[in-house]
């Protein structure tokens, strides 16, 4: 709806407080909606309910002590955040990482990405009112959690990566389990497509809903699957290959219009690509150490700053670390993808219906604690 249409009904506009306690705001997001009937005139996300001051904590902890915090920002892709942080510190200090560890990290990070996308898939359909796919996804996701639990000892906040390697070595059971999981996931697609993707109700709920096109994305710094849905193949794993991603053959799935349906398809396709990466990494998993012999406790990077960008399940993430040569970072800034992905909603939600707002909020895959830090 454009402005002109809205003009005569200005006086009938009322405010609705969507959240912070609401079944579909995933965590503690509050969206102040100005509504005209069911149509949204203005939407203002209000955030910060989960603010824990990670950046301040980063300045008060040594580099190693901050590592467990990293998996608590985006709790759905905690391992990817661990991974990125360790990479950043390793790059700063010039720590060499054994080959085996690098492959293990990639395998685990991709498993983590799949689990994050699976959870998104389930909760998104739940936001749209279909409860059952949510539990099917949890059934699948449980297999990943079991796998990662077996190697890292934790199911959500992994704290798995260490400077110069990983915490524990993977065994044959893990490798076999990962293979089994990939086969299982692939066999489930048929059912998921029949249950959700092809469902006429679902299609009507997502098609042409919440279009984020290239220009809008550029303006708001939208990244990740939300940007790729608009047809931009921007994936830091390809563009700025970190770790050993440049050794794998995988595609960056892209959409066209950038509506909720494209975002949905991009994420589903990404899971398949992650499966491919895992398969290749397992195939090429070298023998050797999973961790450097020297266990880095207190690292002191040289003075200066370093930025490391990596691709989390939600988009381009980055650690900006400033070292003053001591054991504590002078500044630890984290660029979180959900920040831009949420901010763009101030534009996108305008003129949509409340039901669409839920669909859009779900489709951009927000993790609020990540934004709040």
């Amino acid at each position: 709806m454009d402005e002109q249409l809205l003009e005569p009904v200005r006086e009938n506009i009322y405010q609705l407080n969507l959240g912070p306690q609401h079944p579909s705001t995933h965590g503690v997001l509050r969206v102040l909606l100005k509504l005209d009937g069911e149509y949204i005139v203005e939407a203002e996300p209000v955030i910060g309910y989960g603010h824990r001051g990670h950046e301040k904590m980063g300045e008060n902890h040594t580099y190693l002590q901050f590592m467990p915090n990293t998996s608590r920002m985006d709790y759905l892709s905690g391992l990817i955040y661990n991974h990125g942080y360790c990479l950043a510190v390793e790059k700063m200090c010039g720590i060499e990482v054994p080959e085996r560890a690098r492959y293990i990290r990639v395998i685990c990070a991709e498993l983590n990405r799949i689990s994050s996308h699976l959870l998104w898939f389930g909760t998104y359909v739940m936001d749209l009112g279909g409860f059952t796919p949510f539990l099917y996804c949890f059934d699948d996701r449980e297999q990943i959690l079991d796998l990662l639990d077996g190697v890292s000892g934790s199911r959500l906040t992994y704290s798995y990566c260490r400077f110069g390697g990983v915490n524990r070595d993977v065994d044959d059971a893990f490798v076999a389990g990962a293979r089994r999981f990939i086969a299982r996931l692939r066999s489930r697609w048929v059912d998921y497509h029949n249950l959700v993707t092809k469902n006429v109700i679902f299609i009507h709920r997502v098609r042409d809903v919440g279009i984020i096109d290239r220009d809008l994305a550029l303006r708001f710094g939208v990244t990740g699957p939300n940007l790729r849905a608009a047809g931009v193949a921007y994936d830091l794993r390809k563009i700025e290959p970190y770790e050993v991603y440049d050794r794998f053959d995988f595609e960056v799935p892209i959409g066209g219009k950038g509506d909720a349906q494209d975002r949905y398809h991009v994420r589903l396709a990404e899971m398949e690509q992650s499966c491919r990466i895992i398969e290749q990494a397992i195939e090429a998993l070298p023998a050797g150490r999973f961790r450097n012999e020297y266990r880095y406790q207190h690292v002191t990077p040289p003075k200066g700053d370093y930025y490391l960008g990596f691709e989390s399940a939600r988009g381009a993430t980055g650690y900006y670390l400033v070292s003053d040569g001591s054991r504590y970072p002078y500044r630890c800034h984290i660029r979180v993808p959900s920040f831009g992905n949420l901010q763009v909603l101030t534009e996108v939600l305008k003129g949509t219906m409340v039901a669409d707002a839920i669909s859009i909020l779900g489709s951009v895959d927000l993790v609020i604690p990540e934004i709040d830090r």
Partner: protein
Amino acid sequence: MGYWKEIVEGGWSLVEGMRVTAKRLVRPVVTVQYPRQTIDMTLAYRGHIELKKFAESGSHRCVACGTCERTCPSHVIKVQGVKAHARSDKVATHYWIDFTRCSLCGLCVEACPTETLKFSREYQLDGETRWDGVIDLIQRLEENRS
């Protein structure tokens, strides 16, 4: 024509979806009825930390150096130790952890120079007050021994 096609195809997609759920309806359940059935924790499982018991001494090897204390990001650990006499090694007398603040990162286990720390595999750690989370690991070790 598109109108009819959409209705028929849409209706058929719903039937397809119902087939998927019907198939699941007759499958066995995958969940575990928790208090009645339990699952074994994996070997890697990280519960709260615990002192290892070494066969040769029948006790822990904690020398109360305090490395874990300093490594812990959440200041969970407090260690006290005494020297039996001036030339002997220090031996821990108390090893408190406040489990309510522990984030189970495992940095202390890695930091321990005598490798006397390990993860317990307990997961039923509920309590009524916050003080129930404060555990003296040395006392716990003694109790487990008897």
